[in-house]
């Protein structure tokens, strides 16, 4: 049987600890950041070292529009989260959907870019070091966007069914942390691939 509280201790006036959902998501973000760092290091290490094949300068086209889409989705999800805290479900759902659309546009853009690279320039993951590192890094990011979109989609469906209210705003906030992380990673990947690596 468990013992009663110790006879000496007083209950402290305020005892608040961080929300475990946020801590957990922060841990996941740290781990994922480490994975992405390694892929970025590999990309940078191999810049200019391909023995053959197309170089970044020859084939890459900077995806400005789709980057703007993804980065603004961070804004929309931020406001969606705010609205949910204030129990404005309609605004929340609208902005949440907009986030999903913008993320989906980004994925579509990535797909279009890859289609062009593969069919017009013959750059695949096995072509040369650039191909390997490019598709791996951008692909890893795109995978994370996809997983994020799936989760956002699930929340959207729950929202449509009326099950997402201000009581869930802490959890929604945790999910939006993940989405912000995905966007931040894109800032790094974009810089490394389209600016530094050319």
């Amino acid at each position, binding site marked *: 049987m468990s013992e009663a509280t110790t006879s000496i*201790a007083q209950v402290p006036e305020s005892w608040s600890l961080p929300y475990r959902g946020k801590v957990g998501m922060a*841990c996941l973000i740290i781990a994922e950041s480490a994975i992405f760092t390694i892929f970025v290091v590999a990309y940078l290490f191999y810049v200019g070292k391909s023995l053959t094949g197309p170089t970044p300068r020859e084939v890459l086209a900077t995806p400005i529009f789709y980057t703007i889409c993804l980065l603004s989705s961070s804004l929309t999800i931020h406001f969606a989260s705010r609205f949910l805290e204030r129990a404005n479900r309609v605004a929340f759902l609208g902005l949440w959907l907009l986030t999903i659309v913008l993320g989906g546009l980004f994925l579509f853009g990535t797909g279009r870019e890859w289609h062009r690279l593969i069919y017009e320039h013959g750059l695949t993951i096995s072509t040369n070091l650039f191909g390997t590192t490019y598709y791996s890094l951008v692909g890893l990011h795109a995978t994370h966007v996809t997983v994020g979109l799936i989760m956002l989609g699930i929340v959207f469906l729950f929202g449509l069914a009326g099950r997402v209210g201000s009581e869930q705003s802490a959890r929604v906030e945790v999910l939006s942390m993940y989405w912000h992380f995905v966007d931040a990673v894109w800032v790094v990947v974009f810089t490394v691939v389209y600016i530094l690596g050319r």
Partner: protein
Amino acid sequence: MSSDAIAIRVPETAGRPWVEALHDWITTVDHKRLGILYILYAFLFLVIGGIEAIVIRIQLMRPHNDIVSPQVFNRMFTMHGTTMIFFVIMPVMFGFANYLVPLMIGARDMAFPRLNAFSFWLTAFGGMLLYFSFIGGSGLYGAGNAPDVGWWAYAPLTSRAFSPGHSADYWTIAVLVSGFGSIGTATNLIATILSMRCPGMTLGRMPLMAWMTLVMSGLVLISISPLTAAQIMLLVDRYLGGHFFDTQAGGSAALWMHFFWIFGHPEVYILVIPAFAFASEIIPVFSRKPIFGYPVMVAATVCIGFISMSVWAHHMFTIGMDSNANTFFVLTTMAIAVPTGIKIFNWLGTMWGGKIQFKTPMLFCVAFLFQFLIAGLTGIMLGAAPFNWQLSGSYFVVAHFHYVIVGAILFCIFGAVYYWYPKMTGRMLNEGLGKLHFWLFVIGFHLTFDLMHIPGVLGMPRRIYTYEPGRGWDSWNVIISIGAFIQGIATLLFVANLVFSYFKGPKAWNDPWDAWTLEWSVSSPPPAYNFATIPTVASRRPLWDRKHPEDPDSRYE
């Protein structure tokens, strides 16, 4: 299996069919049960990994021995290393952390119980996948089943060209999957420690085990991920025609080494910091004094965590880095010796002036102190790069790291089992068998690992399935192997003690060791909900305060 016995003990479930009990255990999200599952899983693989070691030692008893073929031998040392690190030490540490941390911080469970279960089963699956390779791994041209590339799986040996078939894939995917499990448990532990401490338990009042678990989990997050990344790259090379480590296409073999050791070095701290945690809980109790210098112990552990991220290339001193790079890594490696060495002094300071009781847990921890001292000193030798150019890749290194992993870490694990078994099962382990296990293991350990330094110094490289006679290595190898057999017998005695005491051991009450942290305030074993009322604490040793109301710790902190 113990599941039936535990089911029978709880009165309202007496007479339950065993399938139901089994189902309970498989679907459990209770941190205590998952902790026990992790530990039992680890012991199973300890025995399997030990058998692999015995095979290695039998083969090496004589030069030009042919007990096993080179192919089988190479699989043995690969599987032995991979098993011991990923499927013995890591699960056992996660198991103890899982079981103890919520109890020690006054919580009812971990922050994410379902993630906890998921992480365990991921790790368990990883281990089973690795061993399935013996059956399923055969590739074309009889290319071999279990992985044989060494536990570091250096490129380009792991490329399709040099590792046809699927054995390398089993290594990669099994470790990758269990890595996800490790990240999950680390996340869980951090969230639990930061978000679920009972009122009054500030970070400065947590048991050292909680602090060390926090640091270890942080290390897991940032160091397992590089390995995960490298393994994904390896899979891209092997399956999608990528060139990450394809030296024929301009790729770099050294890149794999850097990524692997960026994981590999913090990994050894992930293995040893929980061992420090066990020692930091056990030594004070059996010296009857609080830990000497709690704040410095915390600071030193955090320092070790940070510095450990900067020493990795001391595993690569021989790859031809330039003198400046080598110098940098000597600096960081020597630097990390300081916070590590300090801890030995703190444990010494704890025993100093105490009243030391040599029960089995304490015996193992005292041996740990001597052995960790020696291990640390041979580590300093290895950290001096030019000396390393002779010692690395030889049996000196094998002796060093086994001195740490067996002599320090495994000894602390044994101590922890003897210490917390009563809490987990409600029975005391047999003290006589425990002492016999201890002495036998000490003798076997020293026979093997003290002497193993010598062939290394005489030029014997590691990972060789046989060796030439007349190089001065022969007799040493015989004695080393004998020591291994003795350790094997001692381990079997240990397992026998675990099983025997479960059924016949004397009943343990809440607090058999007269200890001071919260897990000893509840019954042995604890109820499913841990605490009927969440406790409130005012010092680092809440039970000391309760037992000594005239002189509580809270007055001094």
